[in-house]
Every structure is written in structure tokens, then in C-alpha cells.
């Protein structure tokens, strides 16, 4: 199989995967509504906390919450793509793809690319939704572009890890069951409140939690402006998760194929 054919197949599967996400509004809508609801809620709940010692210098809590909103939406959204892959396995469509002359990696990458596109689009929508409420992104348009790319990469990375779960278990329920784990990871990180205000074991957990670094990279672009450090954290950490997740998912795919 030539590279051109494999690329065409992957693009076709990407298109299908994107459509599959858009066709499930019941799963897709919460990944938009809940982060925006929490942003609105936090802005009016924690508005006075921005004067606490250790809190980063911000215009408003909503400016602080923009990065959290992007991360929450992208993480929840990336489950949708993996759940769609699990559903393909459950209904037998995945087996039909395997018996077709399709590139094996294309099946997985197509799905992941769909999630990445959705994650990027989500990031753009969240930024556009909060900008009219006085949220300022210090790094300007280039920073927003980096945030959108970062959102796509985070979605790809998390979706790859969830796809590994989907391929191993072949169950959409198992993928959805991983949702509470993401929820726990979100709360024990600096997504909702800065690490500088935490103490003891919570600070230690948040420091070890990779989600903290994902959100702090984006937050740095919003609060501090365009810097190499901010770009590195926004792009390289998600890229590392992408590589790890994709390798994991591919090895699960190989295991599944060899088991058949």
C-alpha cells in the first residue's frame, strides 16, 4: 500500500470520525455546556478570591478560568471520540475495517485526528465565547492560535489514551467509566484554583498531576503573554502525552489484531 493511499484512507476516516462526534449531540453538548456553566459560576463565586495571597495577577476570575474552561471541554470532548471507536468495535464496524484493505494505523489515526480537530474547534469556541466578557489574552492572536493548537493536541493525547481503553475492552461503557477518573484528575490539579494557594498533600498531588502543567501552559499565554516557556508548556507537554497515548493505543491495536 502506497503512502498516498494510506493518507487518503486516514483522511476519509478522519472525516467519518468528525461526523460521528457531531452526530452525537447528546454526548457533544455537555462538553460545551458544562465548562461554560462552570466558568460563569466560578466567575461570580470566586470573584473575590483573586486578592488572596499567592493568586496570580489577573483582571478577573474569568480571565483565570479561561484556561480551565478549555481544558475541561477538551478532556470531556475527547472521551466522545474514544467512545465512538468503542461503539464501532461493539457493532462490528471495526472488524469490517480490519478485513478491508485499510491501513491498520489509519483506522486509529483517523479517529484520533477527528478528536484533535474537535478539540481545536472547542478551544476556539471557548475563547470566542469568553472574550466578549472582558477576558484579555495577553499573548494576543499568536497566543490564541497556540492555545487552539494546544487544545487539539491535548484532545489527541487524551483521546489516544482513551482509545487504548476502547480497543482493549471493546466497550463504550468502559470508556465512559473512565470519565470519573478524568474528573478526579481535574479536581486534584490547578485547573480550578492556583497551586500557589494550595497546601500540604493537595499541593503535592497537584504538582505531580500532569493536568496542572497542561492548564498552566495555557494560563501563562493568557496571563503573562507570549513566551518560549509558555509555548513549550502548551505544545511540548501535550505532544509528549500524544506520543505516549498513540504508542499505547497502537500496541493495543496490534494486540487485538494478533488475538484475532
Amino acid at each position, binding site marked *: 500500500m502506497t503512502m498516498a493511499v494510506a493518507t487518503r484512507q486516514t483522511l476519509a476516516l478522519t472525516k467519518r470520525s468528525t461526523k460521528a462526534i457531531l452526530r452525537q449531540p447528546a454526548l457533544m453538548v455537555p462538553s460545551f455546556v458544562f465548562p461554560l456553566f462552570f466558568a460563569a*459560576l466560578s466567575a*461570580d463565586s470566586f470573584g473575590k*478570591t483573586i486578592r488572596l495571597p499567592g493568586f496570580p495577577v489577573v483582571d478577573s476570575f474569568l480571565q483565570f478560568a479561561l484556561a480551565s474552561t478549555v481544558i475541561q471541554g477538551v478532556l470531556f470532548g475527547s472521551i466522545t471520540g474514544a467512545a465512538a471507536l468503542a461503539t464501532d468495535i461493539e457493532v462490528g464496524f471495526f472488524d469490517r475495517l480490519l478485513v478491508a484493505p485499510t491501513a491498520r494505523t489509519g483506522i486509529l489515526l483517523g479517529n484520533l485526528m477527528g478528536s484533535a480537530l474537535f478539540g481545536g474547534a472547542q478551544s476556539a469556541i471557548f475563547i470566542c465565547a469568553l472574550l466578549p466578557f472582558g477576558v484579555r489574552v495577553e499573548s494576543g492572536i499568536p497566543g490564541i492560535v497556540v492555545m487552539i493548537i494546544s487544545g487539539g493536541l491535548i484532545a489527541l493525547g487524551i483521546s489516544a489514551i482513551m482509545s487504548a481503553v476502547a480497543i482493549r475492552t471493546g466497550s463504550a461503557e468502559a470508556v465512559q467509566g473512565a470519565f470519573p477518573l478524568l474528573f478526579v484528575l481535574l*479536581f*486534584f490539579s490547578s485547573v480550578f*484554583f492556583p497551586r500557589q*494557594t494550595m497546601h500540604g*498533600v493537595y499541593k503535592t498531588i497537584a504538582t505531580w498531576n500532569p493536568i496542572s502543567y497542561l492548564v498552566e501552559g495555557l494560563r501563562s499565554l493568557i496571563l503573562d503573554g507570549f513566551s518560549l516557556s509558555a509555548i513549550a508548556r502548551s505544545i511540548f507537554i501535550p505532544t509528549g502525552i500524544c506520543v505516549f497515548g498513540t504508542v499505547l493505543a497502537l500496541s493495543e491495536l496490534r494486540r487485538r489484531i494478533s488475538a484475532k
Partner: protein
Amino acid sequence: MSTTAIPTTSAKEMLRSSTLRSSWGLALRGLRNIRRLPSAFVPAMLMPVFTTIAFSGTFAAITKLQGFPTDRSVNWFMPLGICFGSAFSGVGLGFSAIRDIETGFYDRLRMSPTPRSSLIFGPLITAWMRAILICIVVITIGLIMGVRFTSGIVGVATLIAASLGIATICLGWGLGLAFRFRDMRGAAVMQLTMFVALYLTPAQVPLPFTTGWLHAVARINPVTNILRLARQGLISKSSADSLSWANTWGGLVAILVLSVLTLIFAKRGLAKLDR
């Protein structure tokens, strides 16, 4: 006249005793389902534990805000966790009702000579028992984390009263929706509405600390009074929000009114199901 009066009283007594027996039977079935189908109850137990632990740590710094009514974040967030768990206990039985409707078990219940009211009172007793179980577990975890009941045993009682109240309201709401939707679409509506009603309150910070639209909504949301009832026994004695009749009666009235309304909603839904 007397000959007709005696059987009527007897029939009423029989009905009452039958209602109690059937309700108790259904309540026990609800409790047995915890063991048979743990996935239906475990989230209701984990949610308050998680809320108490995670919120107390993540948002611990908010207690440093001037005028915050307690110096311990766990004192502030544990009642919220218990209210969430109790709410899940209530709507969780709504999910069970949907499952019973879908599997046809509810049709068998409706065909049996069981008083209709027991189909509501049975789950209500289960919801209360589950809420008590949640209170025991979460308060124990809270005590390990350093929670302090500033008003002693009365504070524990008001927290449990709020928990039972929320379980009742959410059960009525959950059953009412289950009887109308009759499939799992109802479950999403139950969860979403419960979640929104609990969050549009001073769930995270006291009412005077909220601003904008949330302040306006939380002021008129009756669940705010129930949360105040739940928290008052854990608030510093020097705070205006600490245990007092003024902080109690609003919560009790909210529980009473919302419970009556949601249980009527459930009863009417059951009547529709019968038709």
C-alpha cells in the same frame, strides 16, 4: 349506621397496614439493590466523599477571605458533599424506577393488589436510609479530616435533617420524571436539574461573597435555605450564619414545600402511568 362504620374503619386500617407492609417491602428491595447493583449506588456514595475531600483541599484558601464564616474548608464543603450525595440517593431511585419500568417489573407491581402510595413511600424510605448511610460515611471522613461541629449534636441533627429533606425532594422529582419519560432520557433530565439547582446557591462561597447573576439567583433559590440549614452547625459561633432559629426555619419550610410539590408531581406521574 354503626354496622357500616365498623367495616369502613377496618378497611382503612387494613389499607394503612397494607401500605406500610408494601412500602417496607419495597424499601428493603431498594436496599438489597445496593448489593445486587452496586453501580447504581456507588456514585451516590463516592460523589459526596469526593466533593468533601477535593473541594476542601482545592479551595482551602477561600477561608482566608475576610469575613468567611469558618476557618476550616472541610466545615464548609462537607455539608455540600452530603447534600449532593442525598440528592443522588433520591434521583438514583428515579433511575431504578426507570429500569423497573423498562424491564416490566413495574407493570407487575401495578397489577398486584399493592396500594399505589407504597410505590412512592417504599422508595422514599430507601432514599432516607441511603441518605443516612451517606451522612454516616461522609461525617466520619469529615471528622478524620478535622471537621468541627461548632453547635454540637444539634448541628449534626440539622445537617441530617437537610440531607433527608434533599433526598425526599429529589426522590419526588426523580420518580415524577421517571413516570413521565419512562426511559433513560429522564435520567439525564433528573441529574442535570438537580445539579443546576444545587449549584445555583452559595454552594462554593457564602451568599455575601457571590456577585452578579449568581447572587441574584442564589438569593431566591429555596435550596439556598436548605444549604444554610445543613451548614449552620459547622459555622463559627461568631458568624451570623451559625446555629439559630433564624437560620433554621427557612430551610425547614423549603424542605416541606418542595417535598410536598415534588411528591405530588410523582403521585400524578404514577396516575398517568396507570392510564
